[in-house]
């Protein structure tokens, strides 16, 4: 057992995954992760090409090209850095490249803020990346390793998200697996792309709206069909994610065969939904409420993309009230997780009320008792109306 912060855990996982090309640009609070990786490379502990790129956009461009050549690639960023590479995130997913990115969740400006919230990765949810959130540093280490397993099976890039400072800079006990076991779990990358002058192929040329016949006489995809395949890959990745989680358990003894963490939910009529470190805090809140006789359970969302609709429906089938805490907001609407939950429940037999609270933006501390108070407030609001409010409530001091 080691005492590691989140960035160290991610760095160790990337090293053990035998990544071959790393391109990263430092940004708070990801910087120590980047520095740790360059240390591993310069010391010879990790045989990889470390590219000290001049921007995050270039970081992802280096990763996409290195990945097309056939190398296992890794990058990490936060906040504005993730936003800067937005265009390239779309590109990497559309090009079907199994890149793994660690997003150290940080608030995005204006105004400037270096502390934690999840607006950065949530803003990228439409790009076609698989997105997985971690509750603690053990999950960070384990998820980065699983990310390569998943990405390279379905050829979809994977974003591993963890809260800046709360996890990245906080030390906790983490078990580091044996390299020989990681090697067993992660076979070498088998690219689906060929860059060989003896057999020339061009990647990501302009496409037409309609399908077009190729050189071999077969009808090839139009843009829409290629994009359909990406959606299909994400839809089907659920099976791969669960399988990767199960096999992780077989080798390392920690079970990840689930799209979310369900705690105290078996007899609960009220379920709190949260993501990242907040999901751990929510368990404390649930326990506080249970001491007052309120049966509350927690659904700690792990995989945000693809959104596990049927699993969520199954978990929430007994809930009459769902309280969703979002460390993000889609301005003009509501928290992203809340929208996803509502979308999952629509048209099912579940007749729960849903209440959305925006919490923790810009590093605002979220205490378990605040989550508990908010849940009680949500419970009382059921007396006024059971319909879902248009807009979320905020836990702040305005």
């Amino acid at each position, binding site marked *: 057992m080691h005492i590691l912060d989140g960035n160290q855990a991610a760095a160790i996982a990337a090293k053990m995954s035998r990544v071959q090309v790393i391109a990263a640009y430092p940004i708070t609070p990801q910087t120590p992760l980047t520095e740790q990786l360059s240390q591993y490379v310069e010391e010879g502990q990790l045989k990889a090409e470390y590219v000290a790129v001049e*921007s995050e956009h*270039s970081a992802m461009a280096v990763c996409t090209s290195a990945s097309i050549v056939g190398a296992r690639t890794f990058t990490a960023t936060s906040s504005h850095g993730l936003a800067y590479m937005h265009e390239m995130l779309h590109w990497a997913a559309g090009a079907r490249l199994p890149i793994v990115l660690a997003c150290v969740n940080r608030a995005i400006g204006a105004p400037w803020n270096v502390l934690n919230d999840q607006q950065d990765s949530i803003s990228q949810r439409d790009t076609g990346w698989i997105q997985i959130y971690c509750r603690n540093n053990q999950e960070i280490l384990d998820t980065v390793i699983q990310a390569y397993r998943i990405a390279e099976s379905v050829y979809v890039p994977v974003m591993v998200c963890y809260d800046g400072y709360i996890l990245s800079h906080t030390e906790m006990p983490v078990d580091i697996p044996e390299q020989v076991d990681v090697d067993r779990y992660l076979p070498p990358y088998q690219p689906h792309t060929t860059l060989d002058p003896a057999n020339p192929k061009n990647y990501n*040329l302009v496409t037409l709206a309609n399908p077009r016949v190729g050189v071999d006489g077969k009808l090839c995809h139009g843009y829409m069909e290629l994009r359909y395949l990406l959606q299909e890959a994400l839809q089907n990745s659920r099976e791969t994610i669960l399988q990767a989680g199960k096999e992780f358990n077989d080798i390392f003894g920690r079970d990840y065969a689930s799209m979310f963490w369900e705690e105290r939910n078996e007899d609960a009529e009220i379920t709190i939904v949260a993501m990242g470190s907040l999901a751990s805090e929510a368990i404390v809140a649930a326990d506080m409420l249970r001491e007052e006789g309120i049966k509350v359970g927690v659904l700690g969302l792990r995989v945000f993309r693809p959104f596990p609709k049927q699993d969520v429906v199954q978990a929430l089938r007994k809930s009459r009230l769902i309280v969703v805490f979002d460390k993000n907001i889609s301005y003009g609407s509501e928290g992203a997780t809340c929208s996803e939950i509502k979308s999952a429940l629509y048209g099912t037999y579940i007749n729960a009320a849903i209440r959305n609270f925006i919490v923790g933006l810009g590093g605002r501390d979220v205490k378990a008792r605040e989550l508990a108070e908010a849940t009680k407030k949500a419970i009382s609001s059921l007396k006024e109306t059971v319909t879902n409010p248009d807009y979320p409530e905020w836990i702040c001091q305005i």
Partner: protein
Amino acid sequence: MKANAVNLIEKEWILPGNRTCPGCALSLAYRHTLKALEGQCIVTVPASCATVLHGMYPITAVNVPCVNTPFASTGASATGLVAGLKALGRKGITVLAFAGDGGTHDIGIQSLSGAAERQYDFMYICYDNEGYMNTGNQRSGSTPLGAVSGTTPVLGKQQYQKDMTAIMEAHGLPYVATCSASYPLDLYEKVKKAKTIEGTRFIHIHTPCPPGWIFPFSDTIKFGEMAVETGLVVLYEIEDGIFRLTSASESLARKGGTLQPVREYFKSQGRFKTITEEQIDELQQWVNARWKQCLNRATNL
């Protein structure tokens, strides 16, 4: 033995029936670039006329492996190819970045500068048609003073061209050179030489554009030659800091160095329809001063 039209490698890597305009200088330049590399390359191409040359999925008009990349990222994409090849232990392949002036001087300058500063081992070729020609001619940092474009439609461009080769020279690269599509043998020799040099190599190719510059497409070679004869384009190479004039610029210098006046160059292209007499005079003086500098710098005269 120096290359000529008789002994130059006959094999082609550009396939006929591609989407470039008739008389496209970029196509000619690319054809000879790939001959110099004998197709032993992996190319990365940003959004540009070259993208169109490469074709539309699922068919490509080019017989070399290629990775298309977003507009701003050519230098980074080339870096990624080099890093990936190195990590996989694959040798003997030139990584070629092939970008237009937009993707080099403007939106792509950051990633190119970053890659050059890191001294990654690839060849960067900028084919310069002096505007964002792929999208119908909007002004770029390389559009000359006085040229009309989609975004300088009435007054013509009010600024001078950005000297990208000088900027790349300032990165301390082992090899920078200027070429013209109208002098394909000079281009061929430079690419061949650059192929043997390790580190980031930068080659700038002047590629006249018939629809963008507004002249008949049979005159592409003529305007490229005129640009060199007037000194608007100087053909040179800088190898390890040593400056040499080459090809027609070298011959011109050896014969006394008298440049043709720039006036006819501007008067014969539709894009200069609003250029003023003052601008022509200014440009003539600028060309003369720059030529003098080149003559002074040249170590091979």
